[in-house]
């Protein structure tokens, strides 16, 4: 056992100076939360490109796969981004779980407290705990899927997953959890660090407006994938390729699937 561990075990870790790690861990919790919150919003815009049509979503997908830079799709690039998000997600979960109620007494107390107080920010925190707990499972499953099968992102592939693979209830729950958790979290970051220096009423208004906007956008997007998936249920596995690409490929002697 190292000397350091012997000192920590003896309860003397903070002698004579307090450890600087609590400060760093607090910064890590906030910064990973900020990255995930902003990623969540950006991600929603990319996914919502389906609302502009299959061509738009295909273009965004291929953009991330590097198709327009290398002339060929590299789904591995998506796995790299997912890998980075996994690291940030795990770090954030590790930091955030420190704040969870850790036994029945704490849970009973904080729940009764939030109910009796009828204080919005305290109640929002309880919701952050509920949704954060859900995301341990839902976000992990989603990230694993995207990391291992990045090639299965596209207008038909995603829609088949939503409808034919029956994942729409999964995405519905995750959408609600992630939008509530992220929106509340970003609001809390602002009041926690005092930036932007606006009144809480104003920050909360912006927060609810953004949460409402992204929830509506998310629900509309999910509905669009469900519709496409339903219409495409007879041809599961087929990949979408825009007509203009097919025409270009046919004239060049390629087949669309090889993209």
């Amino acid at each position: 056992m190292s000397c350091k561990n012997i000192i920590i075990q003896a309860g003397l870790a903070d002698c004579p100076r307090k450890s600087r790690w609590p400060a760093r861990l607090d910064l890590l919790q906030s910064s990973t939360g900020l990255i995930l919150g902003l990623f969540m919003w950006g991600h929603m815009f990319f996914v919502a490109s389906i609302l502009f049509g299959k061509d738009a979503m295909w273009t965004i997908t291929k953009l991330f796969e590097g198709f327009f830079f290398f002339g060929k799709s590299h789904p591995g690039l998506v796995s790299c981004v997912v890998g980075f998000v996994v690291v940030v997600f795990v770090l954030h979960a590790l930091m955030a779980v420190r704040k969870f109620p850790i036994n029945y007494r704490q849970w009973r107390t904080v729940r009764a407290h939030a109910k009796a107080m009828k204080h919005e920010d305290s109640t929002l925190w309880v919701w952050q705990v509920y949704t954060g707990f859900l995301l341990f499972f839902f976000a992990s499953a989603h990230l694993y899927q995207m990391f291992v099968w990045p090639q299965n992102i596209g207008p038909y592939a995603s829609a088949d997953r939503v409808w034919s693979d029956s994942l729409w209830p999964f995405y519905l729950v995750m959408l609600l959890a992630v939008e509530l958790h992220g929106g509340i979290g970003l609001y809390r970051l602002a009041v926690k660090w005092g930036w932007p220096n606006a009144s809480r009423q104003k920050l909360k208004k912006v927060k609810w407006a953004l949460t409402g906007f992204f929830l509506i956008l998310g629900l509309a997007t999910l509905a669009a994938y469900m519709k496409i998936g339903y219409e495409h249920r007879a041809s599961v596995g087929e990949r979408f390729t825009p007509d203009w690409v097919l025409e270009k490929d046919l004239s060049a002697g390629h087949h669309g699937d090889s993209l």
Partner: protein
Amino acid sequence: MSGNNNITRPQHRQLRFQVLRYDPATPAVPPRMQAYQIEEADGMTLFIALNEIREHLDPTLQFDFVCRAGICGSCAMMINGRPRLACRTLVRDLPDEITLAPLPFFELIKDLSVNTGKWMRGMSERLQTWLHTQEGAPEADIRRIEERMEPELAEQIYELDRCLECGCCVAACGTAQMREDFVGAVGFGKVARFRLDPRDSRTDEDFYELIGDDTGVFGCMSLLACHDVCPKSLPLQTQIAFLRRKMAVMGLKGAS
């Protein structure tokens, strides 16, 4: 002059109280809610209502008060689930049903009476909430005239010094309810006050030793009920955020 029979007295409400009764000295009797009913009076505060109950309905009901003017902070209690000062709460702002309970977190004496002083003293000793002057410093010599202070700075210090230590912020804090060793907003307010004071020789490094961990400023989850219930409307939200930024900088600077 004939009597004017047209004068109508305003109809006063019947206020129904549900008060949590418990005496730690007789633990065999479990905590229970006791009902009282009194008639509302003009300008009645909750403090007056409680005295009415004690005087006319139940002399055994125990609660604290000293100043009756929102200065001493003794009469803080949970009023319909939120901590407030009884003497500063007008019953006309409350519904017909009023639930009263002692402040959580603090040692219960009996019924609505809690020992906030014991915890406040412990907090004060833990955070060393007094001026620290270096030996030989001009401030340490009580025969000298004090150094001049800019009125704006004096105002800022005075603003934080208005804290009553009533305990409302701690009773409203979700973090403190879960973690008994949490410093609480009252403690952060004190640290912020001494950090502002140029007569105090302590640096951020010294303050980090007091609040630089999860029982201190990094444990605060920014639920901000402390800020919302403070009877003196102290700027607790901005002070805690400010301390958090300063202590985070210490974390980045430090070596261990």
